[in-house]
């Protein structure tokens, strides 16, 4: 699932919806969301892109406290499994 999250980040960076350097910067599951340098609207764009790719909806309630790309990937997996 973390590959899907990283794929979403690369795609948005290529479209310049979040910082362009994220298209090529090394990213893995331990990368902190705060390290990405994405503003609040960019974070909403990222969530929407992940939802489209994973065919899930992430409730606002599950987001606070997520720190890394692994955390985000786990939240997506959790929602998918619950459905």
């Amino acid at each position, binding site marked *: 699932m973390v590959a899907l999250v990283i794929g979403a980040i690369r795609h948005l960076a290529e479209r310049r919806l979040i910082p362009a350097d994220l298209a090529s910067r090394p990213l893995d599951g331990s990368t902190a969301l705060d390290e990405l340098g994405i503003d*609040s609207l960019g974070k909403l764009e990222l969530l929407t892109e992940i939802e489209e790719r994973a065919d899930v909806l992430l409730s606002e309630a599950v987001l*606070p406290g997520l720190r890394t790309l692994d955390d985000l990937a786990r939240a997506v997996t959790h929602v998918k499994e619950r459905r």
Partner: protein
Amino acid sequence: MTVDTTRTAAVVTGLGPVSALGTGVESFWRALLAGESGTRGLTRFTPPRRGCAVAAEVDDPPPLALDPANPQPRSVQLALAAARLALADASLDADPERVGVVVGTGAGNLDLIEAALDQARAGKRLAPSVAFRVFSHAAACEIARSLDLRGPIATLTTGCNSGGDALGMALDWIRLSRADAVLVGGTEAELSPSFFAIMGAARALAVQHNSAPASASRPFDQRRDGNIPGEGAAFLVLESAEHAARRRARVRAAICGYASRAAGDRPAYDPFNPAFLPEPMVRTIRGALADAGITARDISAISANGSSSVFYDVVEATAIAEVFGAEASRLPVHSIKAGLGQTGAVTPALQAIAAVLTVEHGLIPPTPNVDELDPRCPLAIVRGEPLARPVEHVLAHAIGFGGYYFTAFVVGRA
């Protein structure tokens, strides 16, 4: 010249609720006291493939299909029904030139816009009346026309706070003697595919409770996850105390004070690391108390914004704690949005009606769907049965979408 109009109240002589919890004062109040829910699985159109499929739909009046020759948008249909109820409840007898109309409406006439777009794309000619019905001011204009009211007229569109800000404008008109009576309220008809798509994209709607729609709106509860959209309208008749006394009107309660405040510059919302900043809401509440000429100690109950928002419910609880200090954990709080969803502009007007009835009857309605209170919201939420006690003043809150602005008003004994 300085005109000090604070501390002058406008009296409330008529109420007209049209809501998913009932139409007319008796059915609305009975449902609120019983802790009923008006939210259910969306029936008006096919819900989005993913996302919120719950809504607060109004059955009375039933939705009328748009007549292509003479379209009446749903928000106008609802507003006319509520305005007529309020005028009848007040038995208003006044010079029509001294009766004003203020309507708060947020999302606008999306149903008519969608229908007009379909017709235009199909190459069909639109009825000329579409132009007069599509704009946000249409409900106010139709009310004034159909009830032959000839005084000042305005529409405020401040999103979810519109009904409360309309009340503030009506209070000013009474204080400044621009009118003897004002028919004031809100109307909202959000149940359209475009609204669900737009608000869903902004992550504002609940998505986890589609299988239990009656308990989907859960103010201050641990399992809340967003707003439930709805429709409705609510009007009140406000009068100067002198005008009401002159015609020996039944006075139900008074609108004592009002304030709105912009948040100003602030950190952007971060869904992963939200910062719950109460300061703009605290300023707003203190502004409303000052406008009413009272202090926090004079408040008997709070009609919360409590929209079931993951974020704003905590902001509100934090603001209440700051304004009321140690009293915050004892002061009774309720939210009508548990049963009515976040029905945009109309909700503050319905809160005003509920607050008038709370003051009149000494009964604070319960908030359903609060099973486990969020520990970050340590409020004395009324649950189960209504709380019976004398009520001097109710403080009502509204938080504007995006947290850009806040509204508060005080309803008290006349």
